[in-house]
């Protein structure tokens, strides 16, 4: 399997779904300052943010952008059992709204807690099928 399924995977107490394609860019700053402005801004490390939106981002003063729209797949893990499922591969426990660049097992992911029972996972496109399998077969 090289592509991830378009249909969600339904487990008794959690659900994994493929989110629709979006524009994703890494914004880099070379000095400390406020985060860039975009529809969705995710923390990605010191002076680094991931921007997610419906249209391409214009480069603004103070930030350099690297387009990752095709480099990442976006998954949503949700449900009362989502946190426990995630804990089988991830060491971080996030507060609502927080993000972390972390691992699921051996796979690098960018994880955001988007709600009390929902998470957004950004994963490298080439590893997306492996991540899907790791989450749904385990």
């Amino acid at each position, binding site marked *: 399997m*090289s592509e991830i399924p378009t249909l969600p995977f339904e487990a008794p107490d959690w659900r994994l779904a493929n989110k629709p394609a979006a524009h994703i860019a890494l914004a880099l700053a070379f000095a400390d300052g406020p985060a860039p402005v975009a529809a969705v801004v995710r923390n990605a490390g010191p*002076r680094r943010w991931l921007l997610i939106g419906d249209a391409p981002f214009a480069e603004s003063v103070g930030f350099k952008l690297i387009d*990752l729209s*095709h480099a990442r797949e976006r998954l949503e893990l949700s449900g009362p059992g989502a946190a426990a499922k995630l804990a089988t591969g991830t*060491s971080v426990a996030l507060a609502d709204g927080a993000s972390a660049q972390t691992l699921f*097992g*051996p796979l690098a992911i960018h994880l955001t807690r988007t709600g009390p029972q929902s998470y957004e996972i950004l994963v490298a*496109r080439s*590893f997306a099928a492996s991540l899907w399998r790791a989450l749904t077969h385990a």
Partner: protein
Amino acid sequence: MTAFRLAQGGRIDRERRVAFRFDGKTYHGHHGDTLASALLANGVSLMGRSFKYHRPRGVVTSGSAEPNALVTIGEGGRREPNVRATVVELYEGLTAESQNRWPSLAFDVGAVNGLLSPFLAAGFYYKTFMGPAHLWERLYEPLIRRAAGLGRAGTQADPDAYEKVWTHCDLLIVGAGPAGLAAALTAARAGADTLLVDENFAPGDAALDAARAELASLPNARLLTRTTALAWYDDMVFAALERVQKHVATPDPAAPVERLWRIQAKRALLCAGAEERPLVFSGNDRPGVMLAQAGLDYARRFGVAVGRRVGLFSNAGAGVVQALKQSGVEVAAVIDARKAAIVGTQGGLALSGVETDDRRRIDLDALLMSGGFSPRIHLACQRGARPRWSEQHAAFLAPEGTLPVAGAAAGVYGLKAALDDGARRAVEILADLGRIATLANFGPLPEDEAPEVRPIWRAPSTKGKAFVDFQNDVQVEDLNLAVREGYDHVELAKRYTTTGMATDQGKLSNVNAIALIADARGLSPEQVGITTFRPFYTPVSFGALAGPHRGADFQPTRRSPLDAWAHRHGAVFIEAGQWMRSSHFPREGETHWRETVDREARTVRASVGMADVSTLGKIEVVGPDAGAFLDRVYANPMASLKVGRARYGLMLREDGFLFDDGTISRFAQDRYFVTTTTGAAVQAFEHMEFCAQVLWPELNVGFASVTDQWAQMAIAGPRSREVLQKLVDLDLSNENFPYLAVSETTLLKSQVPARIYRLSYSGELAYEVAVPAGFGDAVAEAITLAGAPHGLCCYGLEAMGVMRIEKGHITHNEINGTTTVEDLGMGRMISSKKPDYIGRALRQREGLLDPNRQRLVGLVALDVHAPVRAGAHILAKGATASLENDQGHVTSACFSPHVGSAIALALIQRGPDRLGEEVLVWNALANEFTAARIVAPCFVDPANERLHV
């Protein structure tokens, strides 16, 4: 020993009868039994054989320190050797068999070793197997290996699932005895996220049922039973193993059988209790002799009397005797170790009596012994803290400044004292976390019996063997021998005698051994010290450590965005690291991969081919200092690269050796695009991160891996321009877009954004086209279609390899960590003007500039049918095949359809000075010799004219 089930008592379910098998015979026990308690209840006392002398052994403990009662459980893929019968929960249909015996447990031929024991003392095999050396491989090692270990592992695949999971808590409490329970209740009532783990399936005292019930009702408290805390790591991470479904006949496939917890705790408290020490006296290993606490446990937890005439040999014991009697066990004799001693035991496979030092014989069928207690401080000392000897406790305790410890694990004995201690330590820890807690109160409790701590290390030995380490058969005399022969340091004595090296890791034996060594050396146990505590606390299955990562899931698989395209065109795939790459594209009628690869390489050189190069590591480098940064990372100049141009780059290690190669393209003043080799992509990226973050944080540069962003295709061959021009919205003529030009453009009349690079790996006119990965499949198909009238073929990794060897391009076969740019003939590419770059100073070391070093050349086989294989060695013509005459080796080899024979790249001493010389290629593995000629490492278009057409 004639143990039996008491008419009442115990925490077993007497309504639920459970059938099980041991060594082929069916027995019955009850739900709530362990295998050991059920065997005892059936009067079975012989449960195992010791490792060295095959001595008959019975159960000594009732817990995870058991050294003797090791059995093999289960069948087929679930077969599990060396399982402690004392921790196996009984279930319907359980099958167990004894180990290390032949033909049967009761009659074991291996017991003859016992008669040879004068020759098998400590260190015997260092003395016996000294020489001659040639016997090692054929005789000694196979003998030792066959003798090693007790049980035999199964060979079938394990059908069960294993899981790893992380969790977080404010306070982790290890051990749910009185201290742990009191601490957990205190913490949970104060609102702390509390995690209590215990290795037992029914931990704790019946007197504390109410406290357990309250804890279970609190939402912020979790109790994990059947869970052993195994290890304490840096940053307050703990490992624990939960046996989720080891106690059921047929595991539910939807759940794991074992779960490896990794616990991130803010604080932790060790309440693991204390291990009772055996007494060392002659015949102390006879089945029926066991620890006093074990005898009590079997009576109180399992309703089993360990014998009809039970003796107690101890330095204390009024409380034990009383408790045994209350449970219905008859105590026939008490031998106070402070006043008397046992000097021998009688009985064959089961105890029938003991002899005391006043020559009295006492008929007993079970003997309980107690030599004092050793607190279980393993976890607190696993990270290097040295335990301290407490004369007051006659035991090693955890030092200050490591994990806090409470209850018996801290040398605080008695129910009331342990409850108080646990609660008190929890209050302290919570205060440290900023929470106010109040001591949990457990109501009025009887005063604890004052513990007797005066140690008795051994009874006077008169005859027979007195064992210190039961499983490994280490006797007092072995320790004395080690001291006499100079192995008197505790770590040396351990290894010389193997005391403490069995599956129980010396839980029962270490402190006794230390005291005996101290005695032999005239020192105190404090001066002798203790051996190092290392994870894990108890053995862990490989299944739990592997978790879900086995078989097809051993490592993740990376798929190229052109994976589906390659599948459609019939690719055969090959694993390259984590990537699945297209190796070659066989066509109908082709019977051998070489036929396919030759055809692909010929087609590219004659007309045009297309390959997937998406797996190259790709890094976008941005920022005002991007050029300066790359100038320092690469040995050749990069800041001077013009926008719209690409350059080949060499990255060195700090020590001057070559690290990786790739191409660097510049798309804007402050934007570069770098490729690395597929195999070294991660290392190269990490190297750049290190440089940016640690070496030069002052540079305003940022970068990201864009490997996954781009689907990248190589279109190579004299007709590649014609094919590509049909799709690319850019004038690809040589004038407008010369060799090493790069451009951001579009494809298919502005439909698809793209980057075009005029780069060539094959040595032909060639382009690389990159499109955002989601467009990759469609664009690859469009190019394949557009190329069809021109004879375009898809080619894979193999043909790519053939063409790069024909061109003398290097890969990590040549960049092998021992080669310099000079060795590879690329010294002239390196800038002598740049003030600095990584590797500049050390690449000029004398040794690296030695003209006698092995340097890169080409080889052509003289016989067109003769093979040349990578890894083969080079001999001068006429030299004898020996390592003394070795002059280098073949790094890459293939059959070249262009040359018509095998060709190779090789690193050969003074190679470039020896062009034209005939040498012998020696493949020692196959004893194959091929005559070859040294040539320049380029077999196609040495003037590179084809790149510029």
